[in-house]
């Protein structure tokens, strides 16, 4: 593999193949735990950890897993690492564990992770697989961070718990509520669509 190809495996997950904005994968945690920056970033990092570890293991075992049972085997591998991160977060911060709730365990069914395992890690050696997983994970973290930042700034007037606007700011409560999650994600997707369309028009013109 030449150097550009490996960098590309990492970079494509950031924007061109961003799991959230382009493929609409892993939407549940993006909407559910993005009501504050800290929750969002921890969720992103936890998912990235599971993604990288399971991609590495799937890639190592790719010649040993029979084709018929591969999905079940991948799910088992993912569930193992999710159990690890579940106990890890519980040990580091009980407060965070309570805030994220069942969504840590629900990383198992994040389609993004199974998607990378099936479409990339099961066909490539360990090096590119880890890079690909890292790129996708960082792309996911960036997306969930954007959501968290917008929702916390507008809905609570703060960023990562630090008050931004002083006591005269009237928070948009709706942004913290479930409805706000849908609105912000819809608006972000709209922005991404607009950017991509403009770029396409520039390419043709």
């Amino acid at each position: 593999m030449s150097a550009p190809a490996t960098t590309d495996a990492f970079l494509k997950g950031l924007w061109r193949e961003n799991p959230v904005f382009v493929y609409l994968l892993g939407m549940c945690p993006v909407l559910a735990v993005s009501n504050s920056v800290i929750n969002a970033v921890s969720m992103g990092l936890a998912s990235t950890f599971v993604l990288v570890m399971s991609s590495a293991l799937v890639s190592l075992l790719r010649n040993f897993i029979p084709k018929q049972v591969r999905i079940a085997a991948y799910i088992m591998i993912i569930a193992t690492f999710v159990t690890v991160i579940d106990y890890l977060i519980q040990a580091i911060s009980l407060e965070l564990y309570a805030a994220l709730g069942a969504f840590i365990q629900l990383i198992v069914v994040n389609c993004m992770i199974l998607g990378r395992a099936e479409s990339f890690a099961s066909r490539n050696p360990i090096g590119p697989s880890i890079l690909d997983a890292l790129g996708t994970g960082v792309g996911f973290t960036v997306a969930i961070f954007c959501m968290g930042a917008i929702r916390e700034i507008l809905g609570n007037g703060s960023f990562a718990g630090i008050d931004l606007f002083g006591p005269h700011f009237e928070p948009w409560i709706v942004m913290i509520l479930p409805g706000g999650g849908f609105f912000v994600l819809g608006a972000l997707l709209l922005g991404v669509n607009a950017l991509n369309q403009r770029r396409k028009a520039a390419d043709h013109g």
Partner: protein
Amino acid sequence: MAEQSLGFIFLSAAVVSNFVLALFLGICPFLGVSGKVATASRMGMAVTFVMLVSSTCAWGINILLGALNAEYLRLIMYIAVIASAVQLVEMIVKKFSPALFRALGIFLPLITTNCAILGVALFQTNRGYSLLQSLVFAAGAGAGFTLALVLMAGLREELELADVPGLVKGTALTLMIAGVLSMGFMGFAGLGGG
């Protein structure tokens, strides 16, 4: 939590904290299968059935793992049970109603990665529901999921006829509508104190 009445559990899972619109579980099928009312309602029924089966199994497994002192295996066992339950449903549907099997197509196996199913199993464990409570909870969650899916599909069928800018069409618009629906469902929050 044991003193909660069954009716309250059902209502709470179905509307007050609706799985799709309040807890954000099962968003993928919500966005993917909500194009037509007929498909949406069938999908809802399939998901409800899998929820009931996996909820019963999860309750049994939790007791078994508790007896063996092996709670750390819970997540792995749950996901294995759900995958087999989906496989079972697939075989039953294929055998008794090939027409329905063809209509559901790829969405049937995809129920495995529907977070709403695993969500039901995890929530009932966290809240310490009894077997009967778990079943009612699963039925309520399934009813809520079907309700959200059918509502969304109805709206999207109407939208086909509306004139919207090309840029907004598709997922962005669907998400905006989901936001409005979700705010509507917040009106139920007064019922039984959420």
